C-alpha cells in the first residue's frame, strides 16, 4: 500500500499522486501520513480509490470528490467534502464549519460533531453526523439528506428547499420556512439503511423529520417578516 508522508512530500505531489491513481481506476489504496492539518488534501479525486489519512486535516479535505473513499482518522477543518459528487468520506473525529457544503452526491459520515453550517446549500449529498451540529446547518439546503444523531443548534434548515433533515436529539430552533414533518415509512426505510451503512448506533423511530414548508418558494411581500 503506497504511503504519502506529508512531512516529506508536498501537497501538490500528494494530490497529483492520488488524482492519477484515481483516474487509473485500479482501486488502489493509499495512506497519507502526517497531514498536520494541511488544507486541500485529497481534493478532486475522480475514480475509485481508498485513501486513509492518518491524522487531522485543514480546509476542504476531499473537496469535489468523485467515487473515492476517503477516511480521515482524525478531525477535519472547514468545508470537508465540499461539493462532493459521489463516493464516501468518513471523519473519525469532529468536522469544522460548512461540512459537506454544496455537496451533490455521495456520503459524508462524521463520527464526531459538526460545527455551524453543516450541509449548507447541499445539493444531493447524504450527511450523517453521529454527534451534534452547530447553528445554521442545512441553510438553503436544496437536496439530499442530513441525519443527526445528537442535537441541532439554532436556525436549523433556514430557507430550506427540498433537502430532508432527520434529528434524533433536540433542535434549538428552526430557521425560516423549516417545519417538522410527518415521518413516513419511506423515511424510516431510508434511515434504517443509512444508519446501518454508517455504523450509527440509533434506531430510525428515534428521529424527527424536518423539511421545507415551501411558503417562501415564490416571493410574496406578505412573508417579508420571515427574513
Amino acid at each position, binding site marked *: 500500500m503506497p504511503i504519502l508522508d506529508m512531512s516529506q512530500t508536498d*501537497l*501538490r505531489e500528494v*494530490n*497529483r499522486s492520488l*488524482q492519477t491513481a484515481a483516474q487509473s481506476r485500479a482501486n488502489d489504496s493509499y495512506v497519507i501520513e502526517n497531514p498536520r492539518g494541511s*488544507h*486541500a488534501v485529497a*481534493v*478532486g479525486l*475522480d475514480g475509485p480509490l481508498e485513501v486513509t489519512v492518518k491524522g487531522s486535516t*485543514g*480546509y*476542504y479535505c476531499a*473537496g*469535489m470528490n*468523485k467515487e473515492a473513499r476517503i477516511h480521515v482518522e482524525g478531525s477535519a477543518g*472547514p*468545508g470537508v467534502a*465540499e*461539493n462532493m*459528487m459521489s463516493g464516501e468520506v468518513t471523519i473519525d473525529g469532529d468536522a469544522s*464549519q*460548512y461540512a459537506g*457544503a*454544496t455537496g*451533490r452526491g455521495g456520503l459524508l459520515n462524521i463520527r464526531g460533531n459538526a460545527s455551524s*453550517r453543516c450541509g*449548507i*446549500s447541499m*445539493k*444531493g449529498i447524504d450527511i450523517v453526523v453521529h454527534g451534534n451540529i452547530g447553528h445554521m446547518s442545512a*441553510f*438553503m439546503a*436544496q*437536496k439530499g439528506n442530513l441525519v443527526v444523531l445528537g442535537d441541532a443548534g439554532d436556525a436549523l434548515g433556514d*430557507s430550506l*428547499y*427540498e433537502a430532508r433533515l432527520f434529528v434524533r436529539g433536540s433542535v434549538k430552533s428552526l430557521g425560516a420556512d423549516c417545519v417538522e414533518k410527518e415521518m413516513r415509512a419511506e423515511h424510516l426505510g431510508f434511515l434504517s439503511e443509512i444508519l446501518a451503512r454508517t455504523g450509527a448506533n440509533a434506531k430510525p423511530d428515534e428521529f424527527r423529520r424536518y423539511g421545507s414548508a415551501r411558503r417562501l*418558494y*415564490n*416571493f410574496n*411581500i406578505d412573508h417579508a417578516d420571515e427574513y
Partner: protein
Amino acid sequence: MTTRTEPRQSRTFSREVNSEIRRAAATGIYDIRGGGAKRRVPHFDDLLFLGASVSRYPLEGYREKCATDVTLGTRFAKKPIELKIPVTIAGMSFGSLSAQAKEALGRGATLAGTSTTTGDGGMTEEERGHSEKLVYQYLPSRYGMNPDDLRRADAIEIVVGQGAKPGGGGMLLGQKITERVAGMRDLPQGIDQRSACRHPDCTGPDDLEIKILELREITGWEKPIYVKIGGARPYYDTALAVKAGADVVVLDGMQGGTAATQDVFIEHVGQPTLACIRPAVAALQDLGMHREVQLIVSGGIRSGADVAKALALGADAVSIGTAALIALGDNDPKYEEEYRALGTTHGAYDDWHEGRDPAGITTQDPTLAARLDPVAAGRRLRNYLAVLTLECQTLARACGKSHVHNLEPEDLCALTLEAAAMAQVPLAGTDWYPGKPGF
C-alpha cells in the same frame, strides 16, 4: 385675465419619482429589474485623449502596427489565456439568458479571438462547444458546480461581488425556471431560485486564499484564477484578492448589469466604474503586482473610446455584458410594438427577469428564444468587438502607442472636476486635479 405662472414640476418629486411612489403603493414590493445603474454618473465620456502633437509622435493609421493582444493569468497558472483583443465577454448565466444567446456569445467571442464567461447556473454544452476560451464562474450558489466542468474551463472566476449589487445576491424568478434550468441547479421547476450573496464555505480573504489553493489543486495549477469584485472598496478589495493568490482581478463598477435585483440596490450601492480603476491600479502598484496580476474592468463599456480610456488608466482588459446583449439584438427598435405591449420602449426594456424578452435573449420561453439566430447574432457580436478594437487602436495610435497597453493616464485630460478627481488626470486646460500631491 389673471396672469399665471407655467405649471412647475418638482425636481425632487419628478414625474418619474412620483410614478415609482404610485407603483410601490399599489404593489407593496420594491422594483426589481435588470441592467445596471441608469443614473448619470461620472464616466469615460468625461475624459478626452490629448493625442499627439509637437511633443508626442503619432503612429500612422492603417500602416503602423498597434498590437491588441493580452495574456491573462501569468502569475501562477500553467496555461494562461491568450486573447487577440483586450475585450472579453462578462459572465451571464444560462437561465437568465437563453441557450441561443449563450451560444451566440460563444460564437462571437471566438470569432473575435476572445473569451466568454459562464454565469450563475453552470456550464452549458452550447457555450462550451462554441467558446474557444471559456471562463467558468465559481459563484456563491454553486449551481451546477462540478469538477469536470472546472477542468473543461480555460479559466476560473471566483465571483465575490458584481458592480450592480456589491454585497447582494440575486433571484431568478420561477417563470424562467424551465425543466432544464431547474435540473442544472438541483432545484424544483417553477420556484424562485436565490443566488446567495456570499460563499457558503469561505468568508474572508484568508479563507479565499485556501479556496484558491483548493481549486488549483483540483485543476493541477493549470487554470488562471480570476477574482471578481464589485466596485465597493477597490483599493482594499484588489489588494486582498492579490494577497489571496488571484491571477486576475475583475473589477465591476456600478454601471455593470445584472439579470435581476432591486432598483434601489442598482442605483444606490457601489461606485462608478471610473472611480474604481485608479484605486485598484494603485493597490496593484503598491504591491508590485501591476501587469503581473492582470486587471479586467467592466461596467458601462460601450465603445473603443471606453476601452482605450480604461486601459490608459491601468486596466489590462475590459469586459462587456450589456453592450454584448445589445449587439446580439437586445432592445432592438424592430420589436417596438412588443416592447410597448410590455409597458416599455426599446432602449428602456429592463425586465430581463420576467422572461418575456421580445428579442429572445433574456428568456427561457422556447418561442421567444427561437427568434434569436445564434449564428447571425454571433456575427453581430464579432463585428461589434472588431469595431471596439479598431476604435481603441485608432486612439492608441493617435497617442503614439504601438500597443494598446502603452496607453497611460498622461494621455488623458478630464472635462469635469469629478472625473478629474476620480481618474486622477488633469482637468482640461490645467495641470491640476483634485487631490493631486503638492497642491
